[in-house]
């Protein structure tokens, strides 16, 4: 069983996101390990990009801090390697296609395999374009995670049928960021997905409270939280570790209680 599949095996999964190198690489390595201890089942590590068009202000600014601090694609692989020395937690890289494409698909995905990346989430790589990356990723045993959105409609099952690892169900229109309410009928989308695949479904975008996380996880197989964590790091920098760990624990406990 893959590490990602294992994360969904016995309970609903809580998935936590942080941006690599925000504010430093060492902080990211330590934070991933602390989040695992706090109960995170999968960690998504953001690969910073100069122009993250699917992100709201919180993660945009994290990208700027990380790039300003000198984080690079090679630096991200170094972070993964260091985490892997101590942990078997499933790791996904999340970012935009150009840094992957420019690094070279073969070089990128072989480095993923070598360092211990399990999956890659690429915000601007829809179903129609994924073959060019997917073929290479498959060669190195890396899952290219599929995203399904509130607007996907008749595309849902087409995407779900070919999904690997887990399905990232985008809960809301627009960009990443905390929302007080999630109005999309995610139940309906999740049911439509489940008709055609056993690949687990995790819901992300807009989730920040334990109630929201539990509520979303109940409709699917897991919840994803990014901006709420990144916001704490933006406020407190390297001193945010304990606060983030406590927050992740509250979120993971809520999700695991379902």
């Amino acid at each position, binding site marked *: 069983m893959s590490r990602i599949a294992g994360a969904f095996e016995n309970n609903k999964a809580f998935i936590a996101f942080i941006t690599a190198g925000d504010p430093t690489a060492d902080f990211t390595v330590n934070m991933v390990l602390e989040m695992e201890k706090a109960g995170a089942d999968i960690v998504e590590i953001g690969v910073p990009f*100069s*122009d993250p068009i*699917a992100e709201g202000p919180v993660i945009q600014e994290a990208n700027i801090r990380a790039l300003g601090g000198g984080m690079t*694609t090679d630096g991200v692989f170094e972070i993964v390697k260091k985490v892997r020395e101590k942990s078997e937690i499933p790791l996904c890289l999340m970012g935009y296609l150009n840094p992957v*494409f420019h690094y070279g698909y073969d070089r990128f995905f072989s480095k993923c395999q070598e360092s211990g990346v399990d999956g890659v989430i690429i915000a601007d*790589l*829809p179903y129609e374009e994924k073959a060019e990356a997917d073929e290479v990723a498959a060669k190195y045993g890396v899952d290219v995670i599929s995203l399904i959105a509130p*607007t996907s409609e008749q*595309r849902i099952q087409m995407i779900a049928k070919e999904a690997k690892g887990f399905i990232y169900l985008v809960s809301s229109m627009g960009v990443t960021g905390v929302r007080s309410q999630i109005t999309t009928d995610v139940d309906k989308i999740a049911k439509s997905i489940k008709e055609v695949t056993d690949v687990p479904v995790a819901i992300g975008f807009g989730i920040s409270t334990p109630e929201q996380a539990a509520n979303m996880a109940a409709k699917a197989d897991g919840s994803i939280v990014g901006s709420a964590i990144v916001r704490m790091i933006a406020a407190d920098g390297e001193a945010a570790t304990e606060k983030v760990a406590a927050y992740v624990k509250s979120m993971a406990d809520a999700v695991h209680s379902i």
Partner: protein
Amino acid sequence: MSRGRYGEFGGQYIPETLMNEVIKLEEAYEHYKNDPEFVAELDQLNREYAGRPSLLYYAEKMTKDLGGAKIYLKREDLNHTGSHKINNVLGQVLLAKKMGKTRVIAETGAGQHGVATATAAALLDMECEIFMGKEDTIRQALNVYRMELLGAKVNAVTTGTQTLKDAVNEAMREWSGRVDDTLYVLGSVMGPHPFPMIVRDFQSVISKEAREQILETEGKLPTAVLACVGGGSNSMGMFYNFINDKDVKLIGCEAAGRGVDTAETAATIATGSLGVFHGMKSYFCQDEYGQIAPVYSISAGLDYPGIGPEHAYLNDSGRAQYVPVTDDEAVDAFEYLARTEGIICAIESAHAVAHAMKLAPTMDKDEIMIICLSGRGDKDVAAIARYRGHDIHE
């Protein structure tokens, strides 16, 4: 399989949230472009509102002064709103209305596309919001007020380099949050399919007219056709109907800024490399890790780190040639055209005029060149004055 390819370039590299919307847009466009009523309506707007056809003007003094090829100017600067941008927005905003949208959003660099979109929105009763880099709202303050006069809301974008690429980022973010009633009216032959195709088709009226006009006046085709290139909409429009005329040279003039050997440049073909950004695979100015480079040009309208996918294809296939033109050369040409022909052109268009000034003397007197004068230069006068050391502000 991926759609909208020009060789390996193009495609639809966008978040899933927008995929159904671009598919719907393509379906609507494929329907309406053949709908006689839509075609007639757009044709009427082009003629009676935008002032088409635009003139093909023989620049006799410039021709004699440079002593080579016979120079014609395709006068897109005389269109309503002062640039070629109106050709595209009338088409797209009309299409948006047919699709049942009530709101349009757009990015703008120099402000020409923003003003054109705000104009079409006013005329066709659409709500309108424009995204413009903060840096550009300062460089082109009058255009901001112009858009507001036309009833548009202008959002100053403070992320990234605060210029055109950041305005595109922000417009895409806005669109992904609100597709039901809103169409993103992209201003250039860039972005995900079907935008490069739609914008090209609406802009191809430039070369359709120019080709007919030159055949009527001169009885033969030009040796060379020149246009400035940022994202590449006026050049794509100027090239399109000449692509099959193999003997007509197609020359795109990129903004080299302070020079292609400096970091302060926006010359994508000269200094960029293959990448995927803003929905398309094409050439981009970027660093070794694929981070998009901050680019620079005196011209806000050419200050963009990428180029439309069909241009990338025309370059690689050898059908078109792309040359860098510096700020200095463009400003010299801006002044030259004003003195010689009494035409104050946009600083964007002056990049094409600058290359023409180098090229024309090397050509025979029986050869013809057409320069696309994509816009008028009123918006640039204060900036050029400051470039020359005069303390003049708008």
